[in-house]
C-alpha cells in the first residue's frame, strides 16, 4: 500500500455512510472515558435502527468495510519517526492482516478516543507513541480478530477454537473453508465485544521485530506525499507574514502602498503584532512583504540579550531549588571526600529548524472553521482556533497531514492560531506560509540552561557525593500545568535523576526560571537533550580527576544496572575503545537511560589545527526492549546522531536588542552530508517492554562528542556549541 493524497484520507471529511464512524466516535465522546471498545461498538439495536451496516468498526482505530477495505486510523502523527509503520504493525500483528492490505488515515482531533495515555492529551511527543500503544493497540487488533473469528464460526456453526485468522481471512482447519474479513464485516458489527482478549506471545510474532518497509515512503519519493504546506483547498490564497521582531512588540504603523501595487497581491492584513500579505502565490506575497514599510513598537524587551538571560540563570543557581532527588547525604559526602570536583555548564537556546517551514491553511466561515495543517497535537489546534473565532470546538474541523519535521515544534498551536487570526480577515481559504527567517526568528526555542555540579571522590577516585543544581525553563509548566508539581516536572529532570550509576549520595535541585521575551518549547530529546550532556560530561570529568579511563570508570559504577552496562560494553567493544588514534583525534563515550531505552555511544573526532571539529565515526549500542521495526530503530539513531552533532557543533540562537540574530541556514547552520560521520548501530536483543526511539540518539551523541574532544585535545568544553577558537593548536 501507499500513503498518498488518495489513500491517506482525512478522517474528518471522508466518513463512511450509513452507521457512520463519526456517529460512533461522537457517541463515544459523549459517553466519555478512556479507550472505550465497548462504547464504540454499535449495538445490534443501533445497527438494526440504521438499517444497514457498511463496516465493522470495533474501535476507533480499525474499520473493515463490507467492501473489504481495511482502514487503520493513526492516533499518532508521522513526522519521519516511522510511527505510520510501527503502529500499523502492532494492530496488524493481532488483527492478522498483512501490512500491504491496510490503508491509513490521520485521526481527527478527539482527545477521548485518541489520547496518548502517557501524556494525557492527543499528542505525539516524548518518544512514547509505541510505549503508549504497545498494549492498547495490540488489544484493539486482537479484539477485532476475535470478533471476526467468532462471526465466521457462528456462520459455519463450528467452535471458534477450530478457526484461525490469517492475512485478512478466517480459516476453518477441519473443512478448509475460508472467508474474507470484508464478508464478515456486517455480521461482526453485531457481535458482542469480548473482554480480556489474549495477546500473542513474542514467539508467535510475524511482524513485530522484523524489518518492515515503511508505508509512507513510496509517496515521499515521487512528489505525491501531502504535507500541510501542500494543502490546496479550492480558491486558496497564499499569505506570508512579518511578526514583531521583538517578542511582545506591536505594530505601530504600516505603509502598504508599494506592497499593494505588487502584481498578485490581494490584501494586507494588519494584526496587533504582525502584518500579513495575502496574494495569488508565495512569490507575490514575499515580494509584497518586502515592499511593506512597518514601524514597530518593540515593547518591554527592546534591549534584551541572551547574555543577560544567561547571567540571570547563573545567578539563580546560587540559591536552592526544588529537590528533584535526594539520596543519602551528598553534603556530608562532599565534606568527607578526598578530592572535590566542581564545574558549571551552559546550553544555548536552539531553534527546531524543521525543513518544512511553519504553515497552516485556514478557511473561516461564519458558522465554522476548517484547518489544514501538520501538527503533533491537533486537539490544541482545534481548541486554539475555537478560542480565536469564538466557535465551539466541534465547529472547527482539523485535517492533519504528514509533517516535514516536527522535533517538538509542531506540538505547539501558535502557527495555527496565527493563521486563524489572519484568515478571519480573508474571504475564502488562505494558506499562511512563514519564510525561513520568520520560522527561525519566531520559533519557540529549546530553553537556555545553566548547571552547577560538585562531586566528591574517595581515595580511589570513585564518587562519594554528586550534587547538581540547574536553572531554566519548564515547558511542562506551560504545556501541561497539572504535571508541574512542587517546582518539578518529569521532563525537565529526566536524565538528571535516577542515573544508572551506583552513586551513594546524590542531591539534585531544579530552579524554574522563565526567561523574559523569548518563548520556549520542547525540542527533540527534550529534558535529556540537556541533562545527558551535563551528566555525561561531568562523569567524564570525574574519571579524568581520578586519572582513570572514562569507560572503565563508568563500568565500575554499573554492577547493579546490567542493561546499562551491557550497552556501554558493547558500544566500546564495537568502537575499538583503547586502540590508538592519530594526534588530535579522540574517542568519547556517553551512556544514558532515558525514554525507557538504554543507549551508549562512542564518538570518534578529529580536531584540526584551526580548531574545527570533524566527527568521523559514531558507534551506538541500544537496548530499547522489544523492537517493533529494527530498520526504523537504526534509521532513527542514524538521523538523531546528525541532529545532535548539529547542536554540538553549530546550534545557537542569540538575542540582541530583543531580536533573534540568526535567520536562515547560513547563520543557523545544519550539519551537511560532507560533514556526516559513519554511524554504526548495534541492537541488543531484549524481551522487555518497548522503549522510545525517536529522540534517544540525539541526547547521547552530544556528550560523546564533547568527551572525544577532551580525549583529542585535553580541552574540556562546558558550554555549547563548542568553541573552535578554544581548540586551536598552540603554535
Amino acid at each position, binding site marked *: 500500500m501507499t500513503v498518498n493524497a488518495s489513500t491517506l484520507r482525512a478522517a474528518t471529511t471522508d466518513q463512511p455512510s450509513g452507521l457512520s464512524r463519526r456517529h460512533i466516535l461522537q457517541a463515544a465522546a459523549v459517553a466519555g472515558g478512556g479507550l472505550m471498545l465497548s462504547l464504540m461498538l454499535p449495538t445490534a439495536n443501533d445497527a438494526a435502527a440504521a438499517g444497514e451496516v457498511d463496516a465493522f468498526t470495533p474501535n476507533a482505530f480499525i474499520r473493515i468495510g463490507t467492501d473489504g477495505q481495511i482502514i487503520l486510523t493513526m492516533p499518532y502523527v508521522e513526522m519521519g519517526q516511522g510511527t505510520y509503520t510501527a503502529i500499523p504493525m502492532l494492530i496488524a500483528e493481532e488483527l492478522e492482516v498483512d501490512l500491504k492490505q491496510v490503508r491509513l488515515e490521520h485521526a481527527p482531533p478527539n482527545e477521548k478516543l485518541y489520547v496518548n495515555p502517557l501524556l494525557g492529551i492527543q499528542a505525539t511527543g516524548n518518544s512514547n507513541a509505541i510505549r503508549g500503544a504497545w498494549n492498547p493497540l495490540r488489544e484493539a487488533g486482537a479484539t477485532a480478530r476475535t470478533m471476526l473469528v467468532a462471526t465466521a464460526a457462528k456462520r459455519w456453526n463450528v467452535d471458534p477454537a477450530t478457526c484461525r485468522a490469517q492475512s485478512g481471512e478466517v480459516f476453518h482447519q477441519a473443512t478448509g473453508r475460508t472467508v474474507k474479513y470484508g464478508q464478515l464485516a456486517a455480521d461482526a458489527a453485531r457481535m458482542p465485544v469480548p473482554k480480556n482478549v489474549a495477546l500473542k506471545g513474542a514467539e508467535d510474532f510475524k511482524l513485530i521485530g522484523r524489518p518492515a518497509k515503511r508505508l509512507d515512503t513510496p509517496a515521499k519519493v515521487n512528489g505525491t506525499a501531502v504535507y500541510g504546506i501542500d494543502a490546496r483547498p479550492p480558491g486558496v490564497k497564499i499569505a506570508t507574514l512579518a511578526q514583531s521582531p521583538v517578542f511582545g512588540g506591536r505594530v505601530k504603523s504600516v505603509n502598504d502602498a508599494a506592497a499593494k501595487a505588487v502584481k498578485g497581491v490581494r490584501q494586507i492584513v494588519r494584526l496587533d503584532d504582525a502584518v500579513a500579505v495575502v496574494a495569488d502565490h508565495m512569490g507575490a506575497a514575499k515580494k509584497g512583504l518586502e515592499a511593506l514599510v512597518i514601524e514597530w513598537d518593540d515593547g518591554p524587551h527592546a534591549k534584551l540579550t541572551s547574555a543577560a538571560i544567561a547571567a540571570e540563570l547563573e545567578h539563580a543557581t546560587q540559591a536552592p531549588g526544588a529537590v528533584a532527588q535526594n539520596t543519602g547525604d551528598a553534603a556530608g559526602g562532599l565534606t568527607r571526600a578526598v578530592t572535590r570536583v566542581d564545574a558549571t555548564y551552559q546550553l544555548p537556546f536552539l531553534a527546531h529548524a524543521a525543513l518544512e517551514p511553519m504553515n497552516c491553511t485556514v478557511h473561516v466561515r461564519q458558522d465554522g472553521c476548517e484547518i489544514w495543517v501538520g501538527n503533533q497535537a491537533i486537539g490544541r489546534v482545534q481548541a486554539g482556533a475555537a478560542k480565536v473565532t469564538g466557535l465551539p470546538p466541534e465547529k472547527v474541523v482539523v485535517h492533519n497531514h504528514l509533517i516535514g519535521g516536527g522535533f517538538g515544534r509542531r506540538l505547539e498551536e501558535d502557527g495555527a492560531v496565527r493563521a486563524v487570526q489572519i484568515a478571519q480577515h480573508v474571504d475564502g481559504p488562505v494558506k499562511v506560509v512563514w519564510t525561513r527567517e520568520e520560522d527561525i526568528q519566531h520559533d519557540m526555542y529549546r530553553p537556555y540552561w545553566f548547571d552547577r555540579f560538585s562531586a566528591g571522590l574517595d581515595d580511589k577516585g570513585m564518587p562519594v557525593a554528586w550534587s547538581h543544581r540547574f536553572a531554566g525553563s519548564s515547558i511542562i509548566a506551560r504545556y501541561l500545568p497539572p504535571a508541574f508539581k512542587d517546582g518539578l516536572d518529569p521532563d525537565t529532570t529526566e536524565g538528571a535523576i535516577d542515573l544508572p550509576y551506583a552513586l551513594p549520595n546524590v542531591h539534585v535541585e531544579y530552579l524554574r526560571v522563565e526567561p523574559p521575551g523569548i518563548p520556549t518549547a520542547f525540542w527533540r530529546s527534550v529534558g535529556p537533550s540537556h541533562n545527558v550532556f551535563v551528566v555525561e560530561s561531568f562523569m567524564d570529568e570525574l574519571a579524568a580527576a581520578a586519572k582513570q579511563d572514562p569507560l572503565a570508570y563508568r563500568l565500575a559504577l554499573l554492577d547493579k544496572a546490567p542493561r546499562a552496562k551491557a550497552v556501554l560494553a558493547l558500544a566500546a567493544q564495537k568502537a575499538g575503545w583503547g586502540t590508538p588514534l592519530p594526534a588530535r583525534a579522540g574517542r568519547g563515550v556517553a551512556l544514558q537511560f532515558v525514554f525507557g531505552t538504554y543507549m551508549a555511544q562512542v564518538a570518534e573526532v578529529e580536531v584540526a589545527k584551526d580548531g574545527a571539529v570533524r566527527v568521523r565515526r559514531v558507534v551506538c549500542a541500544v537496548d530499547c526492549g522489544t523492537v517493533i521495526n529494527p530498520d526504523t530503530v537504526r534509521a532513527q539513531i542514524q538521523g538523531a546522531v546528525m541532529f545532535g552533532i548539529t547542536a554540538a557543533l553549530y546550534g545557537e540562537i542569540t538575542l540582541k536588542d530583543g531580536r533573534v540574530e540568526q535567520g*536562515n541556514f547560513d547563520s543557523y547552520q545544519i550539519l551537511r552530508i560532507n560533514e556526516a560521520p559513519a554511524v554504526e548501530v548495534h541492537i541488543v536483543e531484549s524481551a522487555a517492554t518497548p522503549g522510545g526511539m525517536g529522540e534517544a540518539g540525539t541526547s547521547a551523541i552530544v556528550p560523546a562528542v564533547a568527551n572525544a574532544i577532551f580525549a583529542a585535545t585535553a580541552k574540556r568544553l562546558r558550554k555549547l556549541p563548542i568553541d573552535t577558537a578554544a581548540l586551536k593548536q598552540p603554535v
Partner: protein
Amino acid sequence: MAFTIKVNGTAHSVDVDGDTPLLWVLRDVLGMTGTKFGCGMALCGACTVHVDGAPTRSCITPIDSVGTAAITTIEAIGATTAGAKIRKAWLDREVVQCGYCQSGQIMSATALLTGNPHPTDADIDDAMSGNICRCGTYVRIREAIKQAAQS
C-alpha cells in the same frame, strides 16, 4: 506578464511578474507541490529541479530566466533512467524519514548519477552537500547513491 514554460514535457502559460521564482510558479500556480520550499536562498536544496538536466534551485530562479528550457521535477524524474535507479535505491535502502527534503535530494542525486555514473565518496559529498536533511538521513543517502550506481 505571460510566460510559457515547459515542465515535464508539457507547456504551461503563466501570468506572473518576471522575477517570480520558478518554485512558486510550480507550487502555487501550477499546483505541482512535489517540489518543496525550505529556505528561499538556495541554502537547503529542497526546491531542486532540473533545468535542461542541470540541478537548479528553483527558489532563486526567476521565471523570466527559464525561457524554453526543459524543466523536470520530482513528479517526472522517475521516467529517466538515472531517476528510476535513484528512486528504487531510495526505497530499497529506506532512506526517507519525514521526507520533506527528499524531492530535492533525489533531484540532486539523479543529476549526479546522470553526469557521473560511478561517483566516489568525495563526488557524492560534493554533489549532495547543498541539500540539507534535518532528519539526518545522510548515511543512507550515501548508501543509496552507491547502490544506484551499481545497478
